[in-house]
């Protein structure tokens, strides 16, 4: 009996051993691409060990191309421009590319493997993306489920970002949650304050991150985040602007307004803000102050489900039907959106119908 068991185990282990050895040897000789040089924007050159994906190779050198899925090729965010050496476009990349991007040679960096010297182009802003260590200095309730949290930077102690960009906050272990998670939140503070950032976070029922921020995070806690990411920032064009936000989607606009106010911007801005009831409204005094101080700013709160005893005499219902009456020249208006996908889609659709061509938003999908 014993002999049979030993015989079994030996055969099994022996066979697997032989096969793994063959693979290891093959891997050593075949997948060894040596050191590869990556030329970025023609300005800097990094040397990495060949064989892994461009995304991870860049991350090893502290260049963080934004990626929400972690390199599985499902989010389509990690786009870079391949100039030379990236090989043909893969079927796994094609669905994420617009015809214009196909023509320009845009690639998903998680799908491109570094096998020889590469030449790529990435936006300069990516170089400012870093991992920051910070300490929580203030937690304040805006509403029953929305909090304002302030993070003072420790290492590095300064951040440069554009109002409207987002960071990825990293949670710590708590309760039954063993794995830290990363979630994206728009920065709501004024970019001219470089020593801290502020986030506005709404509690999602059962949400891993928001349960952490709302129930476990305390002042003086240390926490890390990566950033800044995103193309959601004010285009310097001088046109009219429509801001549309729902709930905690207020965050990027708070930062933008503070910056515009500080710079004494002369642009005309209409801010449509959606909430369910009066209990969900916040920062009303801040908005009132902007209306008084800024050149031409109007804040329009719209409640979708006002309660009878709210005493609400403002606008009600959905947001998009109210665009038209505030629109002066669609060709000279930009739309900026932040909120849930339903609000984003409906607002973008209505704006396009009205002839507004430039509509900007970040989808965290």
């Amino acid at each position: 009996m014993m002999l049979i068991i030993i015989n079994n185990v030996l055969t099994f282990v022996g066979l697997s051993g032989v096969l793994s050895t063959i693979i290891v040897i093959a891997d050593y000789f075949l997948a060894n691409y040596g050191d590869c040089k990556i030329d970025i924007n023609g300005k800097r050159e990094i040397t990495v060990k060949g064989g892994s994906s461009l995304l991870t190779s860049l991350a090893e050198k502290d260049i963080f191309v934004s990626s929400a899925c972690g390199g599985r090729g499902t989010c389509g965010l990690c786009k870079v421009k391949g100039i030379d050496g990236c090989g043909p476009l893969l079927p796994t990349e094609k669905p994420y590319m617009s015809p214009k991007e196909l023509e320009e040679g845009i690639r998903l960096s998680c799908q491109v493997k570094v096998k020889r010297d590469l030449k790529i182009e990435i936006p300069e802003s990516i170089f400012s993306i870093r991992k920051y260590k910070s300490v929580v200095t203030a937690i304040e309730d805006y509403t029953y489920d929305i909090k304002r949290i302030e993070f003072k930077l420790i290492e590095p102690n300064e951040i440069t970002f554009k109002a409207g960009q987002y960071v990825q906050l990293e949670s710590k272990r708590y309760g039954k949650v063993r794995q830290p998670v990363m979630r994206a939140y728009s920065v709501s503070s004024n970019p001219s304050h470089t020593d801290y950032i502020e986030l506005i976070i709404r509690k999602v029922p059962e949400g891993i991150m928001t349960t952490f921020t709302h129930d476990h995070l305390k002042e003086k806690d240390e926490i890390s985040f990566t950033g800044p990411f995103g193309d959601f920032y004010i285009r310097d064009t001088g046109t009219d602007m429509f801001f549309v936000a729902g709930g905690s989607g207020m965050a990027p606009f708070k930062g933008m307004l503070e910056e515009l106010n500080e710079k004494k911007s002369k642009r005309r801005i209409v801010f449509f803000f959606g909430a369910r009831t009066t209990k969900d409204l916040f920062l009303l005094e801040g908005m009132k102050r902007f209306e008084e101080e800024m050149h031409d700013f109007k804040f329009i709160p719209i409640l979708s489900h006002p309660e009878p005893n709210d005493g609400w005499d403002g606008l009600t219902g959905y947001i998009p039907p109210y665009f038209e009456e505030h629109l002066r020249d669609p060709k000279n208006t930009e739309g900026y959106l932040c909120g849930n996908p339903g609000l984003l889609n409906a607002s973008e659709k209505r704006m396009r119908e009205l002839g507004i061509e430039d509509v900007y938003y970040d989808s965290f999908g």
Partner: protein
Amino acid sequence: MEINSFVIFIAAIFTSNILLTNFLGMCSYLSISKDMEASAGLGMAVFFVLTFTSGLNYLAYHYILVPLNLVYLQYIIFIIVIAAFVQLLELVIERFSPVLYYSLGIFLPLITVNCAIFGISLFMIIRNYTFIQSIAFGAGSGLGWLLAILALAGIRGKVREKMLPKGMNNAAISLIITGIMALAFIGFSGVVIIQ
């Protein structure tokens, strides 16, 4: 078994198509068949892997497992052999033929766990095939799988533009189409039967 290897080869393509008669290898078949180009790549990969692994597993079974009286280990050994072979093939293709790698190699990891590959190895043992018969069976089944997925991709390409009820999209309509294709393939069964 005294069936001509060529007969087995033809039968594996048409009358005993692994996909349409045994319904093996369905998962990648359903998910990849949206796109003709990808289907062809995956089908070719299945063909290669099936041809080689049926031979390798035949050798592993008759020259290692049978002499050592360890036939009941066949399931686990077959899986290991398939996994190792696919890994190795991927490395080789990636190194020596980038063009082939881009059209075929990226699908290889997908089919390591494909039940059709494993099924073929088990069938050839149960049916007592010789070495040559096993390879013919593997190659034929691979071509049959390729044929089936190309047919489905072609049909789905036509169906896509038509209006379908909401719940019928993707997997549901693919399964219905596959069922009808399987019925059509029954027509071949008058030619030769091997199972």
